[in-house]
């Protein structure tokens, strides 16, 4: 962090000086911008190359962001997930019926009327065939009615919630178009019986939008499960989770593990890490390539105008004024590319895609979202390219000896 600040400090100072120069030395700047226009083809091709790199940058950023949204925005700090020790993920966990009975009447659980705010759940993975004919794993979550209350981020869009013993399911609205039968009034085949889709829901981008929900007993019967997977429970306050955890872990009858719901979701986000790291590496390397290209264009621009620079110097412009204006020329060139690239990235906006979380072993769908924030990052990125790519050529321009420049052909 401190190292980053130290590195950034001269950078920011230089940028501040450039902004000041923008106001102070207007004449050579106008000249530089016009000369960009003079070399239309060369400027345009450099800007286009930078646009492509910035486009990739923004799309990769949005991919990383889409992945984090799909996992993170779930969970409450005052809720806890109970799992079998070492299971780490819901899918791996199992809690026998007798343990669940003890667990559900735990005195620390919050109550709604007489009922404890806890949901015994069964999580299974079922292979579904998608519209395009390929198969993918989908999480099927059997839960008690309280499970819906415990997830306030989830709300119904169409229809109603499932009722017990009737083989009814609700499905995420986002999955509706991708799987045949996954729509209000549709039917699904799971565990040897037909299930009626009685509702669709939304969860604000949370990972629940990749799950099919049904009654816990129905799911356990259909999938021949004798044990539950997990229990989700709410406590009176976030601080109570620790005490609840200690009491459950120490209870010899239970021997189970407690994780705060928000922490659990944090571990799930790790699924996106490899893609993020790879994406960052790609952009880093391509940035290097783009900076070289920008440098090349600027060097050519400077070399072709030795005489003009000499004239400017002879007219009385100082070296630092030349430095600033050539630096601005390169920044403008790259900014044009940056704006173009951010615009280009908009084509990826809204594209639905999916990947599989190897932790939960099931399909996670998310959309590329190109937000104004990401586009701004792309433009800022091009600014950095302009600074780095233009500095050496601009420096050179300002250092050309006056006499040589006047002679220069």
């Amino acid at each position, binding site marked *: 962090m401190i190292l980053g600040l130290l590195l950034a400090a001269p950078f920011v100072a230089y940028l501040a000086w450039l902004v000041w120069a923008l106001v102070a030395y207007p004449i050579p700047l106008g000249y530089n911008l016009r000369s960009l226009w003079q070399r239309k083809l060369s400027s345009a091709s450099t800007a286009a190359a930078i646009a492509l790199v910035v486009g990739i940058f923004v799309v990769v950023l949005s991919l990383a962001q889409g992945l984090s949204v799909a996992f993170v925005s779930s969970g409450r700090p005052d809720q806890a997930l109970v799992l079998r020790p070492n299971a780490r993920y819901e899918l791996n966990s199992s809690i026998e019926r007798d343990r669940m009975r003890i667990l559900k009447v735990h005195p620390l659980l919050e109550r709604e009327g007489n009922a404890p705010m806890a949901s015994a759940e069964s999580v299974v993975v079922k292979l579904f065939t998608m519209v395009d004919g390929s198969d993918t794993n989908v999480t099927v979550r059997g839960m008690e009615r309280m499970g819906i209350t415990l997830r306030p981020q989830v709300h119904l869009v169409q229809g109603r919630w499932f009722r017990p013993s009737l083989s009814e399911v609700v499905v995420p609205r986002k999955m509706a178009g991708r799987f045949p039968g996954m729509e209000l009034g549709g039917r699904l085949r799971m565990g040897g019986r037909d299930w009626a889709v009685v509702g669709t829901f939304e969860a604000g981008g949370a990972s629940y939008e990749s799950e099919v929900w049904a009654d816990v007993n129905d799911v356990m019967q259909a999938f021949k499960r004798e044990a539950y997977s997990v229990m989700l429970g709410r406590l009176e306050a976030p601080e109570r989770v620790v005490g609840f955890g200690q009491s459950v872990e120490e209870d010899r009858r239970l021997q189970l593990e407690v994780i705060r719901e928000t922490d659990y979701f944090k571990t799930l986000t790790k699924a996106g890490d490899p893609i993020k790291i790879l994406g960052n590496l790609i952009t880093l390397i*391509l940035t290097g390539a783009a900076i070289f290209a920008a440098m*090349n264009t600027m060097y050519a621009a400077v070399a072709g105008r030795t005489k003009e620079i000499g004239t400017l110097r002879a007219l009385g412009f100082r070296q630092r004024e030349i430095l600033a204006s050539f630096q601005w020329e390169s920044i403008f060139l790259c900014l044009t590319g940056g704006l173009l690239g951010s615009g280009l990235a908009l084509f990826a906006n809204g594209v639905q895609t999916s990947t599989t979380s190897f932790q939960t072993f099931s399909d996670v769908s998310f959309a590329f979202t190109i937000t104004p924030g990401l586009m701004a990052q792309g433009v800022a990125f091009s600014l950095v390219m302009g600074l780095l790519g233009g500095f050496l050529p601009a420096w050179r321009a300002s250092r050309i000896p006056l006499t040589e420049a006047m002679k220069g052909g």
Partner: protein
Amino acid sequence: MRWLALIWKSLLRSKRRTLLIVGSLMLSVFTVAVLQSLLTSLNSMTNNPNSSNRLAVRHKSGLTQMLPRSYEPYLRQQPEVETVCALQWFGGYYQDPRNFFANLAADETTIFQMFREEFGVSDITEAQIKDFQRDGAGCIVGEVLAKKNGWKVGDVVPLTGTIFPINPRLNIRIIYKSPRPSDENALYFHFKVLEEGVPRMKGLSGSFWVRLHRPEDIPRFVERVDRHYANSAYETLTETENAFNLGFVKMLGNIGAIIQGITLAVVVAILIVTGNTMATAIRERTTEIAVFRAMGFSSGRVLTLLLVEGMLLVAMGGMLGLLLALVAATGVRSTLGSLTPFLADFTILPDTILACLGGTLVVGLLATFIPAYAATRRPITDGLKAIG
């Protein structure tokens, strides 16, 4: 060939420009080569040449559902079948949960016949196999995995179960060598450990691996098995081992499309940048080119010289990029390769190298052609008058 010196001189005319463009190309080609190799590495998971007559039988509903072990005799009785092996993913870890490797419970009697290529069975003695089969807590380990953890034959490996609530302590009986390093990042132990340790696993297995005598029998066999168990309490899904693995690769999502998209964008960017550089280089030499032509060089010859120059330029960048990628691949294998099974075999294949090199040459040709062609079409008198 005798023009090479001339072309080389032209490239060195502006050393800085050549250096910058070669650097730019190098980084771009490096990116493309690594990305494409990543893709081939993923795809190679799904075309193991040794698995052509192996099939996986599992529950139709998905990987987490179990099949009864009583299916085994029926499978074994089929005339096409050479051997059947019950396999169950254990998903345990050794010391650190992040330390991923495949560990499975397997039928110890048939596993060597099933995976004889992967285990390099010809290098394993009969005595070793007997040793493993007699020890109920015995296990076999791939060499890559053993090296990473410093295991030797005779060591005890404590595994912590994640899917199953047992933490078996296993004795290493065999360390096997495999033709593909990715197959060596695995551990197999007796099925009984699971069956006896986990009550709910009694008489069940997640999958059965089946080896047929001849690959031609696959379609008939698949159809018969799945029909036999259709509408039973435990319906089956039978597919080839490669198809089974493909399912996992597909789970990563549209990685292929993303990689191809980035590759396309990079290639277009290279095209533009190279074109721009060559255009500048040629513009600088307008007079020179005119002099050449006045001296009697045909425009075809001048065009060829310029095109070769452009191609030489990109070839330098491309080769450096590929060299960098080859160096990086060794690094990836030794670091990331042990963490994720996908990257254990990560190499830049000759095919990828050729494709990248060919691609860059075509790009160089295309990028140089337009400015070079324009230069040779220009009237000589114009060129001679032009002030460089």
